[in-house]
């Protein structure tokens, strides 16, 4: 199956029973698969009037107690930004899959890019933390979609899947495990009475148990800055408290959230960092470099956000150079530079979108970096 279809199957395996979306290349097949598959298992598919509505609808469905998802690409992702912020502020579990195409604007609708990395991080206004995952194959589309739901349910926020056109449309074998072999996480429910329940009072790990609509807790949910009761609180102190918690629940659990796949890191001189489809080109380049006798290594970012700062810092301190391979003008390379903190030179291999990175291009950069004197 292709990556988009694998995303759909992953969502269903994770327990998603509500999908709201709007067609857009190259994410349309996610919606089409959902429209076919959801009714078969008693779920709801609805095609909304636009992506703003789609995002709003999945938030509403999540408060109705149903795991929910939408999928889109660049232009639609832009439209979703305000309500992604509502999801962050109200701590609403849900999943947004962005199958990236080249932008800005309508750009290249049918061709690959990885240009929405920073938009996923900072696209909604205000300060917040986000979780984003980046699959590099249809199998990972399946696996990461399940993980996206689990993370969203646990940490209570919209989790973003940053796929790309090539992965979305690529056909590969996907192994779907037995139901009992799939780990499923569900939101934590309150155990106290209605009188004692404070909807935004967190447990020790920073996560607040969530009452769904109709559970009898009669919650108030608002995108205004709010106190533990969920009531609007219009002052700097309340803002400080709320944002600190929203940020800390991700930052303090970074180690549990961040995942990378590392190749030859033990003795690598030159380390390529990449993600999504570009990580496959990078893997090829690193293998080819090893054949040429160059000590190359790879960090494949399975989680894009939060960024693995600590790992990068320690690898940078023992590497000769690090290279980011990505299909944009240089987005995650900024994070790489920041995290390497001057410990080694950092460079970029990229294009602006429309085609994938040729492994040869990355190999050249690796060979060049390996030769450079330090």
């Amino acid at each position, binding site marked *: 199956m292709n990556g988009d279809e694998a995303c759909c199957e992953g969502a269903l395996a994770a327990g998603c*029973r*509500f999908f*709201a979306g709007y067609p857009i290349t190259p994410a349309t097949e996610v919606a089409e698969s959902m429209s076919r598959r959801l*009714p*078969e*298992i*008693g779920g*709801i598919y*609805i095609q*909304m*009037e*636009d992506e*703003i*509505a*789609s995002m*709003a*609808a*999945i*938030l*509403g*469905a*999540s*408060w*109705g*107690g*149903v795991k*929910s998802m939408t999928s889109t690409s660049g232009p639609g992702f832009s439209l979703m930004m*305000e*309500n992604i912020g*509502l999801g962050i502020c109200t701590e609403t579990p849900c999943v947004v899959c962005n199958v990236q195409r080249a932008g800005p604007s309508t750009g290249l609708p049918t061709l690959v890019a990885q240009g929405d990395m920073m938009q996923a991080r900072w696209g909604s206004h205000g300060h917040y933390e986000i979780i984003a995952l980046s699959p590099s194959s249809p199998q990972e589309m399946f696996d990461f979609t399940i993980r996206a739901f689990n993370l969203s349910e646990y940490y209570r926020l919209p989790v973003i899947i940053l796929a790309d056109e090539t992965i979305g449309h690529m056909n590969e074998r996907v192994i779907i495990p037995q139901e009992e072999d799939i780990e499923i996480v569900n939101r934590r429910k309150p155990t106290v009475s209605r009188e004692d329940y404070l909807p935004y009072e967190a447990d020790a790990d920073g996560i607040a148990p969530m009452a*769904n*609509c*109709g*559970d*009898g*807790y*009669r*919650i*108030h*949910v*608002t*995108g*205004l800055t709010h*106190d533990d009761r969920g*009531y*609007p*609180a*219009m*002052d700097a102190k*309340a803002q400080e408290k709320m944002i600190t918690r929203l940020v800390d629940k991700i930052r303090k659990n970074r180690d549990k959230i961040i995942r990378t796949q590392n190749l030859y890191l033990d003795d690598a001189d030159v380390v390529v960092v990449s993600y999504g489809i570009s990580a496959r080109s990078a893997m090829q380049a690193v293998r080819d470099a090893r054949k040429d006798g160059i000590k190359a290594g790879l960090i494949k970012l399975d989680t894009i956000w939060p960024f693995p700062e600590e790992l990068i810092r320690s690898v940078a301190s023992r590497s000769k150079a690090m290279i980011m391979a990505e299909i944009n003008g240089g987005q995650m390379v900024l994070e790489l530079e920041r995290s390497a903190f001057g410990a080694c030179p950092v460079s970029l291999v990229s294009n602006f979108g429309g085609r994938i990175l040729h492994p040869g291009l990355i190999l050249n950069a690796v060979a060049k970096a390996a030769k450079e004197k330090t």
Partner: protein
Amino acid sequence: MTTAKAVKNVPPHPMDGLLRTERIPHIWCPGCGIGTVFSAVLAAIKNTGWDPNTIAMVSGIGCTGRMAGYIRLDSFHTTHGRALPFATGLKLAKPDTKVIIVSGDGDLFAIGGNHFIHAARRNMDMTVVCVNNFNYGMTGGQQAPSTPLGAKTTTTVNGSPEEPFNLCDLAATCGATYVARWTAMQVRSLRSSISEALEKRGFSFVEVITPCPSSFGRRNRMGTALEMMKFYQGRSVIRSDIDPSEAVVDIDREIVVGKFVDIERPTFMDHYEKVNRLNLPQWRAMHPDHQKGR
């Protein structure tokens, strides 16, 4: 706005069970008509006799949208214009929930206009109460798609050069199953209309012509809050069952009020059930009792 502490030693209000009394005092200006509409909504909800745990209120952003913060129901204060798609997701996820949307004319018909026409077209089973105060109250009184031609707002100081929507006509045209309009002063009719709307299967819509004395009233020299209330009531003529396109709102001549639409039409869920029942044996097996839920 204040973060109210729990109010002590006050006599119980008849709507106490449905009010988040600890959040009183509210943020509305003295004399604002929204309070009257809110009371009517509370009374109508009480009147249904439904278990409050099965009712949810969803609002957008604006002075009207703040109602969601004062009602002791599961209540959702969403983003500007997006109450209806949020409510759509909520309703479909939990079809047995009665969903009531309260929001302003700007929220529902400017920024949220696209969602309104589609929620009505789909006949989503929900009730929308629109406080039409002819302007954007929350942001200080700017022009709205309901602002009468020639009326003054902070962004139309020489008079609005645009013709407004007839909100009831729009709702009816888009497929609402129940459409009514009252002024905030016509409390009894308003209350019973909202009750009817709540009981109605399908997309029901009640427009309430409501004074905003602080902004619209002040700029158009309409006097005190009470004078404004009386002015709207005085202009109103009850003409139920006329074609909604003829149910004009002309604050200089007449404001036609009444119940304009009360029809039956299958809802989104009715159709969704039907197409899946016909074509999917799995669905038939899972939903033996297909009449359940509204």
